[in-house]
């Protein structure tokens, strides 16, 4: 594990995109900033601009209308960037899988490094998931 990767793993700045979700996951993501879970302990912080981000948290089913926009946001991010799909929608389309406007192949829109299933996932599960990004980092080099 390289020196730079250790620095990166200790300072992940997260940008949060809603790709047509039901807002349930988004509420749980904001939960992580409250005193009870306090993600700043791990150096994780939510940023408002994609240019500052290291991690993209994507929620929702990615319908055909938002998919190009999400692709654009991904291309605007400075690399190295990690994409985390939060919720059952992102990992398995949930109850919307027969819907007419869904994007079938989400990995073609945005290369997801990690899925955190759950409807919505518990905050603990999300912390564990983001901590596992370290493994993704090591595999990339």
């Amino acid at each position, binding site marked *: 594990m390289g020196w730079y990767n250790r620095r990166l793993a200790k300072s992940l700045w997260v940008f949060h995109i809603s790709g047509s979700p039901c807002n349930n996951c988004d509420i749980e993501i904001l939960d992580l900033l409250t005193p009870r879970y306090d993600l700043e302990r791990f*150096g994780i912080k939510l940023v408002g601009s994609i240019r500052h981000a290291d991690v993209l948290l994507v929620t929702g089913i990615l319908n055909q209308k938002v998919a190009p926009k999400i692709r654009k946001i991904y291309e605007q991010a400075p690399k*190295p960037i990690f994409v985390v799909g939060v919720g059952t929608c992102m990992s398995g389309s949930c109850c919307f899988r027969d819907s007419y406007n869904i994007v079938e192949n989400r990995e073609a829109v945005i290369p997801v490094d990690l899925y955190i299933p759950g409807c919505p996932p518990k905050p603990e599960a999300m912390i564990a998931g983001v901590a596992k990004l370290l493994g993704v980092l090591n595999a990339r080099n």
Partner: protein
Amino acid sequence: MTRWLFYLLIFPGFLFTTILGLLIVWVDRKVSARVQFRQGPPLLQNFNDIFKLFGKETLIVKESARTVFVSAPIFAFGMIVLLATIIGLAAVYRIGFAGDLIVVMYLMMIFSVAVILGGGSSGNVYSSLGAGREIKLLLADELVFILVCLIPIIRSGYKLRLDEILAAQESGAFIGSFSGAIGFALGLLCIQAKMTLPPFHIPEAETEIVEGPFMEYSGPLLAFWKLSQGMMYVIYPAMLVILFLGGFHWTGIGILYSVLKYLLIVVLMILIKNTNPRIRIDTALKFFWCIAAPACLIGVVLSVWGL
């Protein structure tokens, strides 16, 4: 020559102020977290952030004015290093030169100008909004800041050198008088506005215009902005200590007093930051021009009378 390079690059200048600044930003984040009943980040968090940013990709927006966009953060960082050297030399070695207080005032303004240039050149609506707000905030606080600087100048017998202002305070710090107390209180608010900390974080306003002028910056360029902001945490309180609290002493019990004076200002700033919501730009202007400036003028008149 080597001695001046050492001053600029290592001891009061670049290296020392950078490291101390990042540690003080940690104090800020930790105290803010404790105020909100959170744990807060670990000690070396800001070093990790900066090293990480230096390894990331730099993106330059196609619509931006490229040269200005890239040079603004580096220019601002250079200004802050110069400022740190001048203030540090006065604080540690008691070295000054003719009119260095005026140079300090100018350098502080040039940092804001660099923020305005960087934000305005990035081709983003939010950034230009932030740059415009920075101009208005500069208009608001500059008058009061100059008046605040006038009080120690007058009280020290019209001396414009930082070391002579320090020498004039050997018999007693200026904060012990009426004019000094007024100047210190208003100087604290001015510093808050100059560093764009809450309640005066109108140009950055994370929840409203997402960091304003810094929105389009990424990688090393953003790291330069963050470093400058960290170093301001060292410079501005130190400047206030020099102007009103009698400066730093580096012998015996004086070391403890010096550190306590400095930390008192930093903690006051953090507490103001954590207990006040953002004010609007018109309220900020009204506050600085209609309340703070007349109050400061009274302070100036009192200091002319020697009170």
